[in-house]
């Protein structure tokens, strides 16, 4: 009997005991694989978890989760389970599976297995307690591993999307030779401000711009850090030989800038985008005239 020493176990051999108990446990779970798996799948359906997936899919996933679960119990290593959890999350997140569902099914499995252990060792209370001592920490770690894997995958997706939004959110557009506009919509946080500066300075360089119009009509408010950042951006652009015209300052933003006493002497500001573009054109030496006025001028000459 492998667990014979366990009966008269002391602290010294308790590690070995836990190992052999775990082995016994795994053997039990392997033996009753089909039955336990089916019970689990039906509990999932009952609890109305994973409603985004069909019954067959649930059963197929349940099978592989079950096998991975038992394997993690057996080897006590969580790497392959982690990889599996990540892979599973990748597949099911786009289908709208929620965090509570994933955590829910893993906890359900834990309960189903614990129930079956209760059933098996009902007669021997001490043995049951020891088996549970071995099972519970491992089972909890598995639940944590799967939940963390799922949440991490979610966070990764969110980060990617944020990155995409951020990239889309600061376009640098050339409207005329050497004239750029940067329309900014939405709140500016320090990170976005940094990105904006980077894009603007790069845009100035690659388009050989002389004037850039920074339109903040769509910005609801800015704080002092961002305001200072704007001033620095204007200054840095000057070092590249370009002028920045800031347009569309709302009354609230104007108030903020005055209250925190930002040095406005360094910034050229114009009321709205149209005025800003006109001012930029003037500086670049453009004059925009309606076509109807041109023959008239020629007649005068």
């Amino acid at each position, binding site marked *: 009997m492998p667990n014979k020493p366990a009966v008269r176990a002391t602290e010294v051999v308790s590690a070995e005991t836990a190992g052999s108990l775990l082995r016994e446990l795994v053997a039990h779970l392997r033996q009753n694989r089909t039955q336990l798996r089916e019970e689990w799948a039906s509990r999932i359906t009952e609890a109305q978890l994973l409603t985004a997936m069909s019954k067959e899919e649930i059963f197929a996933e349940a099978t592989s989760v079950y096998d991975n679960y038992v394997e993690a119990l057996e080897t006590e290593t969580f790497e392959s389970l982690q990889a599996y959890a990540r892979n599973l999350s990748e597949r099911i997140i786009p289908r709208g599976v929620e965090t509570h569902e994933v955590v829910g099914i893993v906890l359900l499995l834990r309960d189903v297995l614990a129930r079956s252990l209760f059933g098996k060792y009902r007669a021997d209370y001490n043995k049951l307690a020891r088996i549970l001592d071995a099972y519970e920490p491992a089972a909890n770690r598995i639940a944590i591993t799967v939940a963390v894997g799922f949440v991490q995958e979610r966070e990764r997706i969110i980060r990617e999307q944020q990155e995409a939004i951020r990239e889309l959110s600061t376009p640098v557009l050339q409207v005329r030779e050497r004239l750029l506009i940067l329309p900014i919509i939405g709140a500016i946080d320090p990170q976005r401000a940094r990105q904006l500066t980077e894009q603007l300075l790069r845009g100035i360089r690659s388009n050989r711009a002389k004037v850039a119009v920074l339109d903040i009509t769509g910005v609801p408010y800015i704080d002092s850090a961002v305001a200072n950042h704007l001033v620095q951006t204007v200054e*840095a652009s000057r070092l590249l030989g370009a002028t920045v015209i800031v347009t569309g300052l709302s009354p609230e933003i104007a108030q903020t800038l005055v209250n925190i006493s930002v040095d406005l002497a360094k910034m050229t500001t114009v009321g709205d985008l149209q005025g800003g573009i006109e001012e930029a054109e003037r500086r670049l030496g453009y004059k925009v005239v309606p076509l109807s006025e041109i023959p008239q001028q020629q007649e005068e000459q």
Partner: protein
Amino acid sequence: MEVPVLKQGDYLIASIQSALSDQDLVQLRDSIVQKVGKLRSRGVIVDVTVLDVMDSFATRTLRDIAHMIRLRGAETVIVGIQPEVAFAMVQLGLSLEGVACALDLEEGLAYLNRKSPKSTKKGA
């Protein structure tokens, strides 16, 4: 390393080739200020394209050059500051106040041509 200062028509072009020590910078300043009088130049371009760091001493020396050149009756323009360098400088509070800057050599020349029109000998 010494910075070559080239005469190009009415202008002087100092094209920095590598990172400069403080001593090199002082030498550059002295040689530009001297040459601008000797060669009767009307404008000076300092090209800093290769510099990926600008410390406070470099910035101050460039500003000094610009102010000294102005006193000598000519215009200075700093060209080729890299975007990253520009922002780092501004964050450190080194913003070359009162000194003209341009994107590159071509822009710098265009700036000087605008700023100091040809002398009277060619007529208007």
